[in-house]
């Protein structure tokens, strides 16, 4: 699906389940997310991670509502626990359906968000490996001076910020010298369209969600 449409759909679903308390809706969302992730051949590890990372908050909220809230509702404890997993798997669904580049390109072309934002983000993503190697150099340099810098050391943070400021300056100059003007019109080698079936899927998903939320299912 087109990343912009998918993003809007995911956000819509996420917001709507925040205001309702139907366990089945959460479970179905998780199931659909898993199906989509299977279709995109997500690695096994990503399912494990999606199950483990929300485990502590999910269990925590289940116990606090079940035993320490005024109502001590079992139903509501399950609503909250499954909701946390529903959020996590919606994130998984989106992540495996698209890439950062595709999402940003779609946001630029379909959602018309400012190009400065789009290419700023893209530039920042491409700087990640560089930041990693810079942190490695700073830590090595400190070790040679007899200091062990941990990732929370203010000195490491300060040095990283100095380096990042320098890079952002260079990146801005590089983009300008390659003809980039903030928010000026651009052409696109790959034009990203929104196929008609995307709208159909979106409408069906939203209608389906309402059907579940307002059905006798709990």
């Amino acid at each position, binding site marked *: 699906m087109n990343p912009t449409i998918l993003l809007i759909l995911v956000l819509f679903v996420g917001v709507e389940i925040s205001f309702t308390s139907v366990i089945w809706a959460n479970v179905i969302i998780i199931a659909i997310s898993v199906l989509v992730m299977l279709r995109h051949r997500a690695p096994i590890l990503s399912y494990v991670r999606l199950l483990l990372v929300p485990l502590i908050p999910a269990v925590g909220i289940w116990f606090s509502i079940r035993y320490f809230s005024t109502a001590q509702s079992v139903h509501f404890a399950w609503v909250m626990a499954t909701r946390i997993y529903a959020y996590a798997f919606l994130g998984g669904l989106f992540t495996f359906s698209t890439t950062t*580049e595709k999402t940003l390109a779609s946001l630029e072309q379909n959602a018309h968000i400012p190009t400065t934002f789009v*290419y700023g983000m*893209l*530039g920042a993503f*491409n700087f990640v*490996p*560089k930041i990693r190697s810079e942190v*490695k*150099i*700073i830590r*090595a*340099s*400190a*070790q*040679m*001076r*007899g*200091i*062990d810098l941990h990732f929370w050391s203010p*000195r490491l943070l300060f*040095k990283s910020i*100095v*380096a990042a400021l*320098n*890079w952002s*300056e*260079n*990146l*801005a*100059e*590089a*983009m*300008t*010298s*390659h*003809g*980039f*003007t903030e928010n*000026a*019109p*651009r*052409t*696109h*080698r*790959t*034009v990203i369209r929104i196929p008609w079936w995307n709208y159909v899927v979106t409408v069906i998903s939203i209608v389906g969600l309402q059907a579940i939320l307002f059905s006798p299912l709990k």
Partner: protein
Amino acid sequence: MSKINLNDVTFHYETTLPPVIEHQNLAFDGGTFNLLTGPSGTGKSTLLKLIAGLYPAFMGEATGTITVNDQPVVDLPASKRAQLVAMMFQNPSQQFAMETPRNELIFTLENLQVPADKMDARVNDALAFAGVTDFADRRFTTLSCGEQQKVSLAVIVALNAEVILLDEPFANIDPDARLFLLTQLTTLVKKYHKTIIVADHDLSDYEPLIDQLYIFDGERHQVHQADAGEAQTRFAAFEQRQHQPAPIALPAAELSPEFTLDGFTVGHQTPLINDASLNIPQGKFVVLTGANGTGKSTLFDALVKLQTYTGSLQWQGQEISKLRARKYAQHVALVFQQAASQFLTITVAEEIALSLKYQQTTAWTQSRIDATLASLDLAGRDDQVVYSLSEGQKKKLQVLLMLIMDVPTLLLDEPLTGLDLVSAHTVLKLLRHAVLEEHHTVLMITHQLTDVSQYADYHLHLNHHQLSYEASL
């Protein structure tokens, strides 16, 4: 009519600082190959960035006008300006916003609003001209500096700019890539009538190629065009200053090794050093030379665990990749090529205090440090921010900071860059003293070879992916 005109241009980084360029009038003709030279740190980059319209947009304050094709460059939007003036930067890794060469070219052409159906042909032509078709879809992080500068040329060709500015473009690249780039640039001038200005302090190979030589005078903050006589003198003087090698000893086989290489290979996609086997002796002063981009710094990175390698690389009989970084750093330390990587605090006094606090022995006392600061011409700068020192001052401070640490083995990556001859002698004397009196091991990369043979014990040379000891330096 000249292609580029500067009319009474004055530029300051800060209004409180002295100007970098003052009341500059200058003209460059269309379809010419121009070389701009002068000592490093005088303002060659600044001048190019002014012509490219990057300054004062990004930094500083300027008065006067700069025109290209009679249009003031500051008034043009970036997409128009990029088609008129393109720039290649000194540091190749910092001029790309995208992940791969092809995407960078597409990004550029999209900015120029080239129609989608014309894009692929233009991208492919540019890739072919710059000889980068083979790695168009590889990530920039896997490309060597020379390959990245070729990509930069491809972007310039895709932009089809009339004026091409190059800021020390060959500082980090190997001789083959340099020769290829110079040939292609000459083609752009002769065949496509482009105007080229290269800023370079290294004049080798340029004499037959260029039409005009411009000289930056740092004292007067002005550039002037050299007439035929002056240009000839400059090139002759440069040739003369080329180093005359002096004989130097070869290491004897029985010396105990500090580092042992055995089938050692290091590099990115293609190896820089291939299957090297030799010893680097302990307690000696060894100088490592080799052309730009051949892998000298990469060898140092491997020696301090910042770079992975294959084969064997041992320090005092132990495999370096298996050593604990923290422990090992107490024995082998590096003076980084990028001074900014060395500094951990803000002022000169703080940096020295930090080294004093963690020094391994008490060989360096406050009075010895004060005397050395004076001999390095760094006295009285206690409260200066280290980043605001000149390049040469940064280098001298770096060397001192690491000497105070008193680490047994010191690797130095280009510590003599930007140093005048007197300072270079002082630094070399300090290193010699560390070797002779304190029995340290020193391994130093340098391009600046004048008088180095008076201080060094051995000369290690890197050429064609191989390391070997030379009998002259």
